[in-house]
């Protein structure tokens, strides 16, 4: 059946609206703030083979989390074992298509006239799935067995009936499990909505048209990326960057990529990277793919539709046992910083051929802090998780964005008032960090600093961060931004810098944890920066007078004339 450009758009719109509607149901009905406020979740529609047809993702990382899922289900269940009303649950990166254990996926087949015509699925980041630390997200675990419950694809619903045994088994392995239950309920409701809507579309258009349209959507997306790739000159480009450490003793770790553009294809080779490491920063294949798809889409054509068709023009090469594309039982809870580094490297390599479509190195650490303790008012155990943004790289014609999440994530912060009402903590400052944006003709975005004081009890925290040793790089003469730094008890005798991947640190009652994020790199020679922009940065306090003199070549006399921020 031939699908014309009209039906393609009309049904394509309908598929997107299904994914969006599923997303709305999930976000609104979830229990945990992580899903509701930070929207750390994603919903998608797949064809019967498991190709992504439409995805409403709030976070590019989730492009990966759902990639392998349907394939794993089909590997584990024969067609006659899959029934209407079934729902599968999985989280394992090696057997369930996931990228790390806290992301739990739920998938449902959609039957029409007795046949599977599609799958709908959603994924949500759960605050805790067990393991050795609260939050299940330590960067210093040394095997996946320490990271929480591993779920291969299993049925959580059988012909519409909840399989309570499985649910109980999962919940018993998680901390704060009443919240897990609420979130899982939301995930189930989300899929039910998706199944119903896909059925409606089949009734309206017939399965033959729906199936043909899915195929054409994939082809359309492939045509679109190939046309964009054809505009880019052929060539081979290499780029390297570093991770601070693996969290259990080794580092810095050098990573690299070789990108080859050949006509209408792009190939990314990661074979020349270190073996997988002991710490939890290994990147499973599905997460590597997500990072690459994100980078390529952002650079080549941000308007590519959110389906799997464009993946066909992208070849990814790695080897078993490599840190990028790791194998069992490598620990991988902290894989997000590695994915961020891969995204940064794709930008770096591509800067050599499309300098107007990239940005300089960004904060590129999905910095997370997980606090656990017993609330002194309620005597209840809590887990509180926070993620922090930082600088975003400068571009060829403008400064970078300040205090944002970049690349693989875009989760919002928790409102301070919401956090202080729910948890025994107090935020003492939440500020921009002057000079954290790398100098350049266009300046890198600034990072932020947040001081969190624990109230009335000792708590334990686990930190997962990076870019504290290797700063975010500049491009074409732009200077690097400031690296991040995590400090406890700042301004006291006990002040100490904490390793970027440390779990189980005690924060004594009324002590302060200071999280300062990395900034981002500049673009172009700072001496070419427009004078008016330098003056503005000084007036607003985005740069200090010292930086103006040192990095931008301002003279003391010139400085005198400027109404510098904070000058009395």
């Amino acid at each position: 059946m031939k699908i014309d450009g009209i039906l393609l758009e009309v049904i394509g719109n309908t598929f997107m609206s299904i994914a969006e509607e599923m997303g709305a149901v999930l976000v609104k009905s979830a229990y945990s703030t992580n899903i509701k406020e930070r929207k750390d979740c994603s919903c998608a529609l797949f064809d019967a083979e498991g190709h992504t047809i439409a995805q409403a993702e709030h976070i590019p990382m989730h492009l990966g989390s759902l990639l392998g899922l349907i394939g794993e289900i089909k590997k584990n269940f024969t067609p006659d074992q899959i029934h209407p009303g079934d729902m599968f649950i999985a989280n394992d990166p090696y057997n369930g298509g996931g990228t790390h254990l806290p992301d739990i996926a739920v998938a449902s087949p959609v039957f029409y006239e007795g046949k599977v015509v599609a799958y709908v699925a959603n994924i949500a980041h759960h605050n805790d799935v067990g393991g050795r630390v609260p939050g299940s997200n330590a960067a210093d675990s040394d095997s996946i067995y320490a990271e929480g419950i591993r779920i291969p694809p299993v049925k959580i619903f059988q012909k519409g009936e909840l399989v309570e045994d499985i649910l109980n088994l999962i919940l018993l392995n998680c901390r704060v499990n009443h919240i897990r239950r609420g979130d899982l309920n939301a995930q189930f409701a989300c899929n039910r909505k998706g199944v119903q809507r896909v059925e409606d579309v089949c009734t309206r258009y017939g399965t033959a048209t729906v199936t043909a349209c899915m195929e054409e959507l994939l082809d359309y997306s492939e045509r679109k990326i190939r046309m964009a790739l054809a505009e880019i000159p052929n060539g081979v480009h290499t780029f390297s960057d570093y991770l601070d450490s693996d969290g259990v003793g080794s580092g810095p770790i050098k990573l690299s990529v070789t990108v080859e553009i050949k006509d209408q294809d792009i190939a990314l080779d990661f074979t020349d990277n270190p073996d997988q490491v002991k710490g939890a920063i290994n990147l499973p294949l599905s997460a590597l793919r997500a990072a690459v798809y994100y980078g390529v889409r952002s650079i080549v054509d941000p308007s590519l539709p959110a389906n799997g068709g464009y993946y066909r023009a992208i070849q990814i090469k790695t080897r078993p046992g490599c840190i990028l594309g790791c194998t069992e039982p490598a620990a991988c809870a902290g894989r997000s910083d590695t994915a961020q580094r891969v995204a940064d490297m794709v930008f770096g390599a591509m800067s050599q051929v499309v300098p107007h479509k990239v940005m300089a190195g960004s904060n590129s650490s999905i910095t997370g802090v997980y606090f656990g303790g017993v609330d002194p008012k309620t005597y209840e155990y809590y887990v509180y998780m926070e993620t922090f943004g930082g600088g975003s790289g400068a571009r060829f014609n403008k400064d970078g964005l300040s205090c944002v999440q970049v690349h693989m994530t875009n989760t919002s912060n928790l409102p301070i008032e919401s956090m202080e009402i729910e948890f025994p903590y107090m935020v003492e400052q939440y500020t921009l960090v002057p000079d954290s944006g790398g100098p350049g003709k266009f300046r890198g975005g600034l990072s932020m600093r947040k001081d969190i004081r624990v109230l009335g009890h000792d708590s334990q925290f686990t930190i997962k961060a990076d870019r504290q040793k290797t700063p975010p790089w500049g491009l074409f003469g732009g200077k690097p931004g400031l690296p991040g730094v995590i400090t406890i008890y700042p301004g006291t005798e006990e002040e100490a810098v904490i390793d970027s991947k440390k779990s189980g640190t005690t924060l004594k009652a009324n002590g302060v944890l200071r999280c300062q994020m990395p900034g981002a790199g500049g673009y172009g020679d700072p001496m070419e920066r427009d004078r008016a922009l330098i003056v503005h940065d000084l007036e607003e306090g985005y740069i200090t007078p010292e930086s103006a003199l040192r990095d931008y070549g301002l003279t003391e006399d010139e400085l005198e004339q400027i109404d510098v921020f904070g000058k009395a």
Partner: protein
Amino acid sequence: MYRIGIDVGGTFTDVTLLNSETGAYYTYKLSSTLHDQSEAIANGTKETLALYGVPVEQLEYFGHGTTVATNMIIERKGAKTALITTKGFRDLLEIGRQTRPSLYDIMEDKPETLVRRALRCEVDERTMADGTILRKVNRDEVLRVLSQLKGKGVESLAVCFLFSFLNPENERIVEQCIKETWPEVYCSVSSTILPEFREFERLSTTVINSYLGPRMKMYIHNLQDRIRQVGVRVEPYITQSNGGVMSISSTIQTPVQTALSGPSAGVMGAIYIAKAAGFQDIITYDMGGTSTDVSLVKGGIAEYTTKRKVCGLPSGVPMIDVHAVGAGGGSIAHIDNAGALKVGPESAGANPGPVAYNLGNEQPVVTDANLVLGRINPHYVLGGRLKIDAQLSRAAMKKQIADPMGLSVEAAAQGVISVVNSNMARAIRVITVEKGHNPSDFTLVAYGGAGPLHAVHLAQEMGIRTVLIPPAPGALCALGLLTADIKKSYVKTALIPYDQATPEQINQAVLPLMEEGSRWLASENVPEQRRQFHNVAEMRYVGQNYELQVEIPAGLVDQADLDRMKEDFFRAHEMNYGYYNPNAPVQFVNFRSEAIGQVQKPRLAELTEHMETPSGAVIDHRDVYFEESGLVRCPVYDRSKFGRCPRVDGPCIVEQMDSTTVIPPNTWFEVDIHGNLIVNAFGDGKGGDEA
């Protein structure tokens, strides 16, 4: 006596004049004067009154809808504003929710803040999460900050401290200092503007208010002078984003309430017309040249939201939940490089406009598609004020769409309509299905210049049975202005666990809000018998961060009411999210009271003539293309020639000055007593007379 409503849009200023005794209303349109909106307002008033021979002394009401606030934010032309906030939190305004605006487009920027960093001042104070004050504000420090700001040409101040919604004391001290030492400066305080939790949204709302204040004050005083000069003796009322109106003095205090007022008057007009026709549950569908606004009305009451953004900046004041889609009559159709037919978001606007205008645009737009299909009069639009050339539309459609796709010109034009309708359908799903409603339970009320062209097909797409086309679809906003109530919402955040809640606690939260509302209504000169309150509680499961609204019954709340509220919460949760959990702990979060001053609603004029058949209204016949039937010869009716009529069969076209209604094959409509077209989109069922 007469009531006049003036709605200023980007291109036109619409005037509606309503005879309070007969309910008859008249419309008038003139070009907007964007350098000074009041110019067109004064002229429009004068010209309309002259046209209909109404002496200015006969005006008993003057309603005005303005985009001044919205434009000020878009163009960044508000006041030089400074912020006073808690020590350590100057940058909260800039950090916001730490998200970037686009996941994949690295060239997109965050919206610029309305207060530059150099004017964001911190004072050493802190209120805790339980409302206790850890550090009291130091007056001397505040006075020092104020004197520094005075030297910097600051025109307005915003004050926002953490947890001021629980305890406003520190903010009050600052406010007092300002009153004492700088009385002339415009000032907004967060615990007054929006005493609600979530600091960034409260801060952003307060800052927007201060940014708008001084210029809004100037605009309104200028407007007052202008209309006095043409002899208007009544004080104007200004439309708010919540669908109500306020006096000018209230508007000057809270201009943030007008920031998204544009589409709200139309919603109120739609509610008014639909109610009179017997429809309480409606979807409003306002399709204009560049965008389309849709909203949901249940039981005659519009859905509200506190989560909207003004040009990317959060504003937490309650507004009608209008969902905008970037598609309208002027949206450009094109085939993208990989073969998909795209419509919008680029628009040809009013100038150069559709290809048919022959003003330089060569890319066909939605209006051109309607012309090709014969749905719009191929010779002129706007009652003959604008000559057009449908052949140009045809040629462009052939060249740009039909030939490359290997389709007939008609099939290509139909494709453009199908794609734009699928965009609209996606938007309507957002406001209905996602909130647990079924679109087929609603009536579609279509207005705006292009709404009636697409409405019936769209209704079919959504499974909506009934479509209502009001008598003057292009002037519904101005009519809404004349029927809107005086309205202001008060909020109090009080996190109370349901299990510990007593009726007294609820009353203690709500009564002060009602007292405040009463005082305000008194200041708006609303007599007591016209005052009304609509109270709601916002509840959630403990641990959730989204609240659902539950009605608080009028009068003092007792235990039975409290029980009922929990049941209502469960029902609302089930409706919105598909499940509820009877055992999980529930809490109250916010209490809201909407103070309403009911405005005397005019009776709508009734058609006196009764027609058995529509033949008397036929003015022409022409060929119109429909997907379901191909090209068919259709009667064209002149809307103004209709009396009441029980049944008019499609396919046909109904023309009027400001709009065209398309009635597809196998559907029919009735002209009701007020002149509405009530369309049966599935061609079954019975007419209004028989029902």
